[in-house]
């Protein structure tokens, strides 16, 4: 049962702890030493975990010589743990390189390797005590990276709560308690109604925020997967387990998507985006649970494929985007949307990375986010329809929520990228923005390239990395549903062909480019002032034009009032401060939105009436 890879991983975790101790005890060692040291160790660990996945090693365990008396920590390496170890360690490596090169967190970089060690422990733990300890260590270390941050204490509290529920949940309680216990990690991942803290906690310094959304959130999802799927007690979960997760996930996806089209600074927008991704993952978990209760392993596998893809995407884009936000804050002096603008000219590489990260999570083909939504929709379509009217309504609601999440993703991409990187600078400081150090850009570029490749090669990626854990969880793998070309709902049936689609797009673009180079088509453009509807150029004392005539990101999504928990009064006041277009608003449209809401409410009431009559 002794696995050399697991032993090596345990040694690496211990070395990371040692690195943190060196950094804490001895303030001298340069940031570079700690950062690059942690990056090297985690990079090695990620490679080892990948090797374990590829080799298909048998599950192994290892008892550590530490822990509570009579309850020594045990580590285990099975395909699911290996998959999430790859995610957490790879994200950790990129974040460490960035921390070494660019940012100087207020708490020093010493907590960084400690956090990575905690995450490694949480992923590789074979018992609840070790897993809870790992989560607690990781949460505390993230707090220590930025101890002055206002939301840090809440984040610490939530992490400790999740650790406590994991430890309690591991004591093999009755299944009902297990579902409740899985909501501790759920809160850590930002599932509604415990999501507001995540949007605030993203305002920490870049490495802390990136660790939070890119490494801790996937690990929290992993913990939920462990509690709900991997333990022997829940081989056949009760039917009612799925719907609560589905409803909470749908609420998170919509609340996060709406937040991303409304919040006033990049960090809060990214936090909202994390909530949206978590919501989608919770929907996937709910679909998988429902399918498992109905004994449909193929559908379970498909939904879990969506969850694992979203988790990988969160590890890549969830660490890329906060780092980009940090780079923007450093290079342009602010992270507020209404003080940025035009960064594509001054910070082209950072802007390209921002676009790649946003495109990855938005649901546009051929991005990976689209593949994930596609998989979830197919799993939804394959769910049994035998339930009552309430279950059918839930299915329809989920389809609409997936559509809404996709559209809100596009709107969020357009809003953040458009306001931050495009247009005219809104302040002199933004006009004087500069790229951060080249060494800090490298991890950003690597993560951006990974996000793009994950979208195009989603089939092979899932086949190689996600198939072993899914096979271990459900007994049936993705198999021929994930091939070189893309994804399919069943063996041999047509599906989403990512690679041919990307080739088709490139070929069409090439054809048009060729047509544009024909003789007689003037290709070189003359440059001049913007036409702007014929308005005169701005006076000399407004070098970037009149700031209020440019969109600052208001009204990119319909205003939907979801109660005070979703949008705090403060955020609403902040949104009101963001100027719209010189007084032009959608007030009339907002009023008109009552129409469809009324239509839907009446319809739902009628359906409920029908169901009631049918039931009696």
């Amino acid at each position: 049962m002794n696995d050399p890879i697991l032993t090596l991983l345990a040694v690496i975790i211990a070395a990371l702890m040692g690195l943190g101790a060196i950094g804490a005890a001895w303030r001298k060692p340069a940031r570079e030493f700690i950062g690059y040291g942690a990056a090297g160790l985690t990079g090695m660990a990620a490679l080892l975990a990948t090797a374990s996945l590829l080799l298909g090693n048998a599950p192994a365990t290892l008892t550590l010589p530490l822990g509570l008396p009579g309850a020594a920590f045990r580590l285990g390496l099975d395909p699911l743990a290996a998959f999430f170890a790859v995610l957490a360690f790879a994200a950790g490596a990129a974040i460490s390189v960035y921390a070494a090169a660019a940012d100087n967190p207020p708490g020093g970089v010493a907590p960084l390797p400690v956090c990575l060690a905690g995450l490694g422990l949480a992923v590789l733990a074979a018992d609840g005590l070790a897993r809870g300890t790992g989560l607690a260590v990781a949460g505390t270390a993230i707090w220590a990276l930025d101890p002055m941050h206002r939301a840090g204490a809440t984040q610490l509290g939530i992490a400790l709560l999740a650790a406590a529920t994991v430890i309690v949940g591991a004591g093999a309680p009755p299944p009902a308690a297990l579902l409740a216990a899985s909501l501790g990690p759920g809160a850590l991942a930002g599932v509604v109604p415990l999501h507001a803290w995540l949007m605030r906690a993203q305002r920490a310094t870049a490495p802390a925020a990136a660790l939070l959304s890119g490494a801790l959130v996937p690990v929290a999802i992993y913990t939920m997967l462990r509690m709900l799927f991997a333990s022997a007690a829940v081989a056949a979960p009760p039917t009612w387990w799925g719907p609560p997760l589905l409803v909470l996930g749908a609420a998170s996806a919509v609340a996060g998507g709406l937040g991303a089209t409304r919040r006033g600074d990049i960090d809060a927008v990214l936090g909202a985006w994390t909530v949206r991704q978590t919501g989608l993952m919770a929907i996937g978990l709910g679909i998988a649970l429902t399918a498992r209760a109905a004994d449909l392993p193929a559908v379970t596998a498909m939904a879990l494929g969506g969850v694992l893809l979203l988790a990988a995407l969160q590890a890549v884009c969830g660490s890329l985007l906060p780092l980009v936000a940090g780079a923007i804050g450093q290079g342009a002096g602010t992270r507020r949307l209404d003080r940025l603008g035009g960064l594509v000219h001054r910070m082209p590489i950072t802007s390209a990375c921002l676009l790649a990260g946003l495109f990855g999570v938005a649901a546009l083909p051929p991005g990976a986010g689209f593949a994930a939504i596609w998989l979830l929709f197919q799993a939804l379509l394959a769910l049994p329809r035998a339930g009552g009217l309430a279950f059918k309504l839930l299915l329809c609601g989920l389809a609409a929520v997936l559509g809404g999440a996709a559209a809100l993703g596009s709107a969020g991409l357009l809003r953040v990228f458009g306001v931050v990187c495009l247009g005219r600078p809104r302040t002199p400081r933004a006009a004087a923005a500069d790229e951060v150090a080249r060494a800090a850009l490298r991890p950003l570029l690597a993560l951006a390239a990974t996000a793009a490749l994950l979208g195009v090669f989603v089939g092979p990626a899932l086949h190689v990395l996600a198939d072993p854990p899914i096979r271990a969880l459900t007994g049936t793998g993705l198999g021929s549903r994930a091939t070189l070309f893309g994804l399919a709902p069943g063996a041999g049936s047509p599906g989403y062909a990512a690679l041919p689609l990307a080739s088709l797009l490139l070929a069409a673009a090439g054809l048009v480019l060729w047509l544009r180079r024909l003789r007689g088509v003037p290709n070189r453009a003359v440059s001049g002032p913007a036409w702007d509807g014929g308005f005169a150029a701005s006076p000399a004392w407004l070098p970037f034009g009149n700031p209020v005539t440019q969109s600052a990101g208001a009204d990119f999504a319909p205003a939907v009032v979801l109660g005070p928990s979703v949008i705090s009064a403060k955020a609403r006041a902040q949104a009101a401060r963001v100027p719209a277009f010189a007084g032009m608003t959608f007030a009339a449209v907002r009023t008109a939105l009552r129409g469809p809401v009324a239509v839907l409410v009446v319809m739902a009431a009628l359906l409920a009436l029908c169901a009631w009559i049918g039931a009696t």
Partner: protein
Amino acid sequence: MTILLAWFTQALHLVLMLAAAPVVAGLQHWIEARLSGRIGPDPWQPWRDLARLVRKQPALAENASPLFRAAPLACVAATVAAASLVPSFTLGMAFAPLADLLVLIGLLAFARVVLAVAALDVGTGPAGLAAGRTAWLGCLAEPALFLVILALGVLGGGTTNLDLLIGQQQQGMLQPPAAAALAGAALVILALGGPDPAGQTAEFSGADLALIEFAEALRRLVWFDVIGALFLPLGIAEPAAGPLGWIVGMLSWGAKILVLAACLAALRCATGRPQLARAPLMLGIAAALGLLAALLALASAVVA
């Protein structure tokens, strides 16, 4: 041989779509003008406009980024890719395994987003306003579209592939769920085509503007084609049908597109261009219809 035929029909289909797109737009304008008592422009006018635009030298705003020149290209590429996926006169074309309804919606959304990115690039007020409006409308439209797709997918036995769905619809056309889905989809398309697209394109000129106008015409034809092929799959040739079947398919395709364009023109003539303020109500009703379609489909699937 089958593969060769599939590629041949695919190429033929694409050429047909690309050539017909501006003509259909012109026809719609012409019918609209005739119905409101004007002589109206020749249906070939959009082609002439495109040829004129292509010969002009583009003018670029000083602060435009490279994305601004790339956007028309990407917009047209995505729309052409979408156009190549929707069957017109025959099933079993070479790209049929790629033709997924969700992918189609995604490609059209991609084209929309790319254009909005370019609109935000120069930083002028009206273009930014129009870009926000695009995103805003998309947020209301896509839930309704996904509901319609759910209904069709359930009817089609758990697939979202266009060819399979059309084959299924050919067995029994316009049953109640499909009819509700058709009404919902038509409302969405009407509302999406409502707001004036000119706001986003004010800064474009020359060949770039020609590309965008072509993409707009092609996008409208793709929607007509989706409606025609999915809900009224009359005359679409089977994969094995020879040239005779193709000719029948082309004739019925032309007739369907003509009727749909005339319907849209008549509707525009009677009610005017749909107002943005009315779009939420239209999309709400579309979502309700989509919900109805999905529920009917789910109920009938249990019985079956």
